[in-house]
């Protein structure tokens, strides 16, 4: 799960740093607004705790052992934003002092384990446990499911980051320069062991610790509710926004419908297609400029992957990029307008 340096190209590392930075920025702003002084030792100790918990060997049914990451647990107890900082710090100690995970790849590792994992875990936990009693069985079950799904999704992100490398970075003779396997190999190779072992460990650890705390130390489960309302992030901004996200998810799943339609979108022809359409001549400028911008995912097809999956993946990548840019722009605009 910890990507060492050498697997990702420097360009990908830069992209992942850029992806993680808004979360770090927002997390530090949020933490600063809420009880700065008290949060400093709290986050430091939880970072130390998650560093130590990663070293626990968990006995699995069948006699093997595995390690847990613990991001979901920290997110449930401290809330997702504080978890972003705590887990990033734990990963920084691992990368800097113990060579576990690369320095250039630190952004990618943080994005997978300190951003994706706590947020996915936190929201799933709250979605399942809802407003149930502190002692309700829904909480440990929610925690276990959250741990399982969060680690699996984090592993998926890791697999996609690694799997994109050979499409983007090759030497002139076709030699892949970084991680050599495409998505069709990287995704099953990462997902198999995670679905079967690693995510099971995460589920076991997260669920059983929450269950133990229910019996022994309930105040720890109420930590996020003690903090001022600002620190608590509501599930998704509002019910209306939630409908929008669900709609977006359905649209993503429907994206392969585009494969059924013949031809190209009206007006988006390239030079080749214009010729096929029976146009007598190709405008010289179009011919000249046609190849100036090679798309990162041409025709929305990811080589080596089933066309439908490739379509869905293209949709997800696109939507993540667009949402990120929109969010950043809106943040900047909102901040400037509040200054005035």
């Amino acid at each position, binding site marked *: 799960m910890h990507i060492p*340096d*050498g*697997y990702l190209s*420097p360009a990908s*590392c830069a992209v992942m740093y850029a992806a993680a930075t808004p979360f770090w920025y927002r997390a*530090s702003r949020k933490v600063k607004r809420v009880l700065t*002084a008290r949060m*400093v*030792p*709290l*986050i*430091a*100790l*939880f*970072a*130390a*705790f998650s*560093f*130590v*918990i990663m*070293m*626990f*060997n968990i*006995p*699995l049914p069948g*006699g093997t*052992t595995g390690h847990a990451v613990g991001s979901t647990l920290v997110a449930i*107890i401290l809330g997702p934003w504080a978890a972003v*900082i*705590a887990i990033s710090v734990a990963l*920084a*100690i691992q*990368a*800097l*002092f*113990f*060579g576990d995970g*690369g*320095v250039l790849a630190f952004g990618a590792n943080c994005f997978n384990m300190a951003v994706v994992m706590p947020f996915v875990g936190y929201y799933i936990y709250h979605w399942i446990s809802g407003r149930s009693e502190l002692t309700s069985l829904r909480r440990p079950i929610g925690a276990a499911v959250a741990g399982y799904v969060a680690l699996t999704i984090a592993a998926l992100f890791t697999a996609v980051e690694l799997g994109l490398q050979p499409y983007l970075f090759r*030497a002139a*003779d*076709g*030699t*892949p*320069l*970084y*991680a*050599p*396997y495409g998505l069709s190999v990287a995704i099953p190779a990462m997902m198999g062991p995670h679905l079967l072992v690693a995510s099971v460990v995460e589920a*076991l*650890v997260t669920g*059983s*610790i929450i*269950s*133990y*705390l229910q019996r*022994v*130390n309930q105040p*720890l489960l109420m*930590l996020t509710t003690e903090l001022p309302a600002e620190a608590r992030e509501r599930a998704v901004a509002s019910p209306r926004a939630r409908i929008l996200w669900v709609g977006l998810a359905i649209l993503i799943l429907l994206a392969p419908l585009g494969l059924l339609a013949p031809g190209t979108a009206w007006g988006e022809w390239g030079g080749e297609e214009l010729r096929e359409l029976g146009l007598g001549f190709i405008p010289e400028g179009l011919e000249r400029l046609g190849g100036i911008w090679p798309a990162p995912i041409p025709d929305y097809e990811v080589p080596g992957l089933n066309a439908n999956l490739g379509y869905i993946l293209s949709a997800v990548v696109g939507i993540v990029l667009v949402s990120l840019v929109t969010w950043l722009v809106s943040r900047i605009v909102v901040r400037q307008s509040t200054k005035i």
Partner: protein
Amino acid sequence: MRARRGFIERSIADITATLEKAIFSEELARKEGLLQNLDPRMKVITFLALLLAVSLSQGLLIIVALYFLTLLLAWRSRIPLGFFIKRVWLFMPFFTGMVALPALFNIFTPGEPIVTLWQTERFHLAITIQGLRTATFLVLRVGVSVSLALLSVLTTPWATLLKALHILRLPQVFILILGMAYRYAFLLLHTANSMFLARQSRTVGQMPGGENRRWIAASASTLLAKSYHLSQEVYLAMLSRGFRGEAQMLDTFRLKPSDWLWGATLLALALLAVLM
């Protein structure tokens, strides 16, 4: 029945190895050597540049050359070379080596075959030039990057390294948290180790798996509760010493002419490696 190292022994071994590593690297960092004397800020910048060069370079020989540069620096910094080489390469075959191995073959990396291993009409298994190159790239890049990161940590006491991170424009609060987390990680590691030892010394024979899982959940939760409790006490201690949520760092670094010289040399070498 075969004797198997249980999860308790493994956890103790992992934790002890971590503690040992940390103590050993602090010892090396206090020796007198080339990199120990280099200004830590200059070291952070030059080592980042070298790491980038290893990642950006498209020539295998250039990466090998950068590794020899790393070895030279380690030698001049009085790091035991046998230890330095073993620490990086001993386990390489089991991790990145395993990952890189399948890439050798034409199934995963199509290209010009150099060694044909199996040839029938329908099936063809061969090692390709491209496969060999991509596997070597991966193993070398990972090995040299880990060596560089290791060398910078082995020659810098962590408190100094943390201060030097400030020049990367990391927020002070983040560095403060990083420093505290590192310090308390050792306390918690010791606590966890004692918990495992105490359990081990009271265990006779084999415990059922479910019992073990219940125990580990209980001890992890106890550790969690301890961390929380400790954070409250640390907060009160900080508060009583006048902490107001702002981090101030004493910065006493002075750049010597030799720092500029070494920094410029290493940066030039990194740049050369990328351009070649």
